[in-house]
């Protein structure tokens, strides 16, 4: 056990910082505090990363990635967040990517990976269904094999960015007889295929990120099946088990900290700056302490590297529990710090923070709700 900073990682941080200073266009920086970047900005930024050879921070070198360690990737994310870069396409990079790299045929990989690396194709994820939320395996969208095609019928919901995506990766039921997990397959579908209808879901943050996606006799080439038929559940488990150190969204929490500090010194009440009010300083200081603990918990989880044992998995769940809870408490307090304008929806300056706060109510719901995470932790840690 040893807590001196690693000089190689420090050097890496400097490299990233220099790159960002030199290569991040001013008009792409700080476009939003937490939510998705505009599609156009993402594409431009992805192309710049591709030019640098940093197109896929989480992929291995022989697949066009950087081969970075989890620690390096956390530093990269930290610096990108501080510099305010656009986001990358998380669905393509972190969810589909590992699946392509691990399960795709060479032909499949060649068709789908390069457009991701270059920022030319955006993906969305078709997992949840109206009747299958926390109980994902009860999904009912079905794909029937007819010749060299699957014909897909059914409905997905909560599909983030379906309206901006080019392709979707889908879980479908290919064997209606098999029990729950057993009959599920993993399918890649072009969003332009006839029979797909995207219907917007407006969120309580006043934005349109989520969608319903309807499939009506959608023909999908059988070549778009990843892995074998009916092995979709094990692919899903592989995909969901990947990123334990990321569940707390540390860069977001750090941006919140920055925002609070900014408000504390720029806002005042009765001529007194907020930071000079003890109750405000007290609250922010407590948040900062907790954030420091979460940050170290992320480091600990990162240091478990590829470990897929019970403890790593449980740490991912615990990080999500604590990180998202902190997210929600911090963002509510940020809005409180706004004072009167914290109530107002239509001013650009404050709307970002309030919309961000409303949006983050979902953090404890998606990606395995807090209730599901508690169940996982109890089972993994105590066999309860």
């Amino acid at each position, binding site marked *: 056990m040893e807590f001196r900073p690693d000089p190689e990682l420090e050097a890496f941080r400097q490299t990233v910082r220099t790159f960002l200073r030199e290569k991040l266009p001013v008009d792409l920086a700080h476009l939003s505090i937490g939510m998705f970047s505009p599609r156009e900005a993402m594409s431009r930024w992805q192309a710049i990363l591709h030019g640098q050879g940093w197109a896929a921070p989480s992929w291995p070198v022989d697949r066009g990635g950087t081969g970075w360690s989890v620690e390096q990737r956390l530093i990269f994310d930290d610096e990108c967040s501080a510099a305010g870069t656009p986001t990358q396409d998380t669905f393509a990079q972190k969810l589909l990517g590992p699946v392509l790299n691990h399960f795709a045929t060479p032909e499949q990989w060649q068709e789908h990976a390069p457009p991701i690396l270059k920022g030319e194709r955006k993906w969305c994820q078709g997992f949840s269904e109206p009747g299958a939320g926390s109980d994902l395996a*009860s999904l009912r969208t079905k794909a029937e094999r007819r010749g060299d095609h699957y014909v897909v019928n059914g409905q997905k919901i909560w599909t983030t960015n379906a309206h901006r995506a080019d392709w979707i990766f889908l879980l479908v039921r290919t064997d209606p007889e098999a029990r729950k997990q057993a009959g599920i397959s993993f399918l890649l579908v072009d969003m332009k295929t006839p029979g797909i209808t995207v219907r917007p879901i407006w969120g309580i943050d006043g934005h349109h990120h989520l969608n319903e996606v309807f499939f009506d006799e959608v023909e999908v080439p059988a070549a778009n099946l990843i892995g074998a038929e009916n092995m979709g559940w094990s692919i899903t488990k592989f995909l969901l088990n990947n990123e334990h150190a990321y569940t707390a969204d540390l860069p977001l929490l750090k941006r919140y900290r920055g925002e609070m500090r900014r408000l504390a010194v720029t806002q005042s009440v009765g*001529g007194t700056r907020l930071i000079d009010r003890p109750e405000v300083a007290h609250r922010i200081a407590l948040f900062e302490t907790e954030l420091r603990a979460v940050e170290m918990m992320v480091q600990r989880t990162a240091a478990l590297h590829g470990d897929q044992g019970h403890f790593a998995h449980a740490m991912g769940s615990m990080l999500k529990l604590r990180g998202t809870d902190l997210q929600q408490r911090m963002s509510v307090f940020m809005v409180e710090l706004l004072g009167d304008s914290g109530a107002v929806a239509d001013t650009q300056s404050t709307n970002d923070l309030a919309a961000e706060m409303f949006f983050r109510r979902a953090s404890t719901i998606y990606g395995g709700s807090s209730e599901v995470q508690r169940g996982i932790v109890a089972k993994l840690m105590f066999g309860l």
Partner: protein
Amino acid sequence: MDFTLNTEQQLLSDSVARFIQTEYDFETRAKSVGSGDQRRASRWDTFAANGWLAAAVPGDLGGWGGTAVETAVISQQLGRALFAGPWLGSAVLATQVLIASGNQALIREWLPLLCDGSRRLALAYSEQGARGIAHIVETRATKDGATHRISGRKTLVLGGLGVDAFIVSARSDGAINDRNGVGLFLVAADAAGLSMTATKLHDGTEAADLAFEEVPATVISSNAADGLDGLEYGLSHAMLALCAELVGCMERSIEITAEYLRTRKQFGVPIGSFQSLQHRMADMVAEMELARSMLFAALASFENDDVATHRRVLDGAKTLITTAARNVCGQGIQLHGGIGMTEECAIGHYFKRAVVADALFGSSSLHEAACAAALQDELRAVHA
């Protein structure tokens, strides 16, 4: 004390409930909020015809002779339906401040018109640097012959769109924090030099920002102490109304959520059969009943105690009840899962109202600090 509604109160409550049921369901509300024409949708004529606008107006001034209790009874029902019209801003806040101002001439002139719904007022008192605290005022009033001229900016003028005139707090003397020097003025909505920016709050209700440039104004209470005292008394009445509204919000949030838990199925059973969710609901309803009790304590204190005591109790009530509302309605979203995050589901709107409520009349942290300061004053006086 008596915690049950008497006959008149029950009739009052029932009449509001009937209006909600027949003319203001969630869809109607959503449409009116979306259309930007809330004033018509708010059915001010109905409010007048049913006597709700006169319910808490003293009998000798042509009202029904009720108190803050009657205001609370109406507000709670309106809270259940998330009523988005200018009830709080005009019927409670402006009316009660006018009454408390003690300016008999203006009261006799305006009050009948406010009660019969033919005229409407709004109160412009908060400023960005005041954050809902009444004695913090930068807006200036200068005497100009027989009239006054007002210059400055006001924020969060509730129900300010379409009113006939504004009651405005302004300072003729002293520094930003001084209790002395704050008076109340009446400004016609079409007065020269007054410009208004319509704002929409997160919950869809309308408010306004006002900018005054040498705007001519009639004195309501130039007597500094009277003006501020009246303002604060009316504010206390409105804070009670807001607290009652939030209790209504929590009631309905819990009902909606309980219904969802009974019908929504996951893993083959209603999710209400999960013990962790049952216990969550128990905690939510306990928090609501505690908040309702705090509302009653504040109503009792407003009725029975001196100003210093009731302000302290109200500071505490504002904090405890808005915190409870954010918790309860936030958990309502959580228990709904994804659907709770959507604009079309009612539960999220209750949470939004709770967030807005926290920003109105001073946020929780300010009120908590005020309670702490009052405790220090009390104990220092006793144990010098």
